């Protein structure tokens, strides 16, 4: 390389930093739980690398219930209602409300600071939604899509705050990413599903139900058979049966959305959490940061998928169905 000397020193610095980081991660790997087993020296990891082996639990913990008590997991103690994911969800909600209420408390025509930021976000989201759903419905779909997005995003990102899961109560983390509790993604999926069906019904009326149950083509075929046109009638009856089957498939796909919504978010978030825990156990230093960056991106993507898919399904539900005209 024929670079000027002034360019050489930053390059050198970067090289030194990279080497140092690799060294740190190597040292922490050797000293960590897995390294000790591989390189010998007992099963116990060295002092500062002593991170508990990850024991991820799928059900949300109930930190106000001491584990020793009988039936704590089943929810028999006094505060068993409160799971750590619920507390995190409340924090996200409080944060969101605080953010928006602060931004709009002294709302001005010429925006400043926080109002400017929030307005920028709202405007971008509105444009995104309008592009998909059109101007007419864009405004109506906005609140639910954006709230879903923000809620998922905030939950995901809150769990990345350093020290987030280290606050313990009764040997259980007080806070835990709400998206990793199956109840939260399922609740969001149900909300999304309800809004989709509501808008579909509202936009198309009882016509919308024909998407799921439609006997009329088959009945028309039978009518034709009895009125003498046996061949045409049988053909129409056959087509009617196919329509019925299509309706059945539509219903299934609608219900499958619930499952896919739930498990996409739950799976991604839980996997992210477990991956981070495992990596932290194997290489306590440096490398987890990479995974934290990945998780940040993943949280954003999941939130976008959740809000975006809801938007897509809403847009699909309100478009009139013309199957009867065929």
């Amino acid at each position: 390389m024929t670079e000027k000397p002034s360019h050489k020193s930053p390059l050198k610095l970067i090289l030194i930093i990279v080497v140092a980081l690799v060294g740190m991660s190597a040292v922490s790997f050797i000293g960590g739980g897995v390294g000790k087993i591989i390189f010998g020296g007992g099963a116990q990891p060295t002092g500062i690398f002593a991170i508990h082996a990850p024991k991820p639990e799928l059900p949300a913990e109930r930190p106000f219930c001491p584990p020793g008590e009988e039936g704590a997991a089943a929810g028999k103690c006094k505060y068993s209602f409160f799971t750590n994911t619920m507390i995190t969800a409340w924090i996200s909600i409080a944060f969101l409300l605080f953010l928006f209420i602060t931004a709009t408390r002294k709302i001005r025509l010429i925006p400043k600071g926080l109002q400017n930021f929030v307005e920028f976000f709202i405007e971008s989201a509105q444009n995104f939604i309008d592009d998909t759903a059109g101007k007419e419905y864009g405004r109506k779909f906005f609140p639910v899509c954006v709230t879903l997005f923000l809620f998922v995003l905030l939950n995901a990102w809150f769990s990345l705050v350093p020290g987030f899961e280290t606050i313990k109560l009764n040997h259980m983390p007080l806070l835990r990413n709400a998206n990793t509790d199956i109840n939260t993604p399922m609740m969001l999926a149900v909300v999304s599903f309800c809004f989709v069906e509501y808008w579909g019904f509202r936009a198309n009326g009882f016509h919308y139900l024909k998407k799921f149950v439609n006997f009329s083509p088959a009945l028309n075929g039978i009518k034709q058979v009895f009125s003498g046109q046996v061949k045409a009638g049988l053909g129409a009856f056959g087509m009617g049966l196919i329509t019925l089957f299509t309706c059945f498939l539509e219903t299934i796909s609608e219900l499958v959305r619930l499952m896919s919504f739930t498990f996409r978010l739950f799976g991604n978030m839980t996997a992210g959490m477990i991956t981070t825990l495992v990596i932290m156990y194997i290489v306590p230093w440096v490398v987890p940061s990479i995974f934290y960056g990945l998780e940040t991106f993943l949280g954003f993507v999941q939130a976008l998928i959740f809000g975006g898919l809801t938007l897509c399904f809403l847009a699909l539900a309100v478009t009139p169905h013309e199957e009867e005209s065929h």
Partner: protein
Amino acid sequence: MEGLGLDLPTFIGQLISFLILLGLISAFGFKPIRKMLDERSKRIQESMEMAEATKKEYEQAQAEVQKRLAQSQKQGEALIVQAREIGEKVKEEAKSGARAEAQAIIEKTQVEMKRDQDKIIDNLRREFAGIAILAAEKVIKESLDKQKHLRLIEETLEQSSLLRKH
């Protein structure tokens, strides 16, 4: 499902929390901001329209001013011409008036002078007649009585005035 941690109370709790968030954030977050955004875009449109209108108005006003200026200049010129004409006329009138007055004064003076002249001549004649009669008296040495004397004067005067009239 038990292993996943699916739990109805938790589910309902989260659902209620989320619905509260949805309601509050729509009412206190999205709505005012949307209103503000709409209002802003409306304001911008309005002010742009207003600017356009103002520009048009200004141009119109300028044209009007230009027109008025030209008009008033024309009017002013006409006024000046008129004033000059009037002044000319007034001067003329004053001149002719003065001339007439002077003429009248001259004529009056002439009349008066004529009258005075006549009076003087009359007196002179009367005196002269008296003297002439006195002289004639002396000449004829004959004393006339007073009445005869006066009659003689009147006769002479009558004759002389007749003479003068010719």
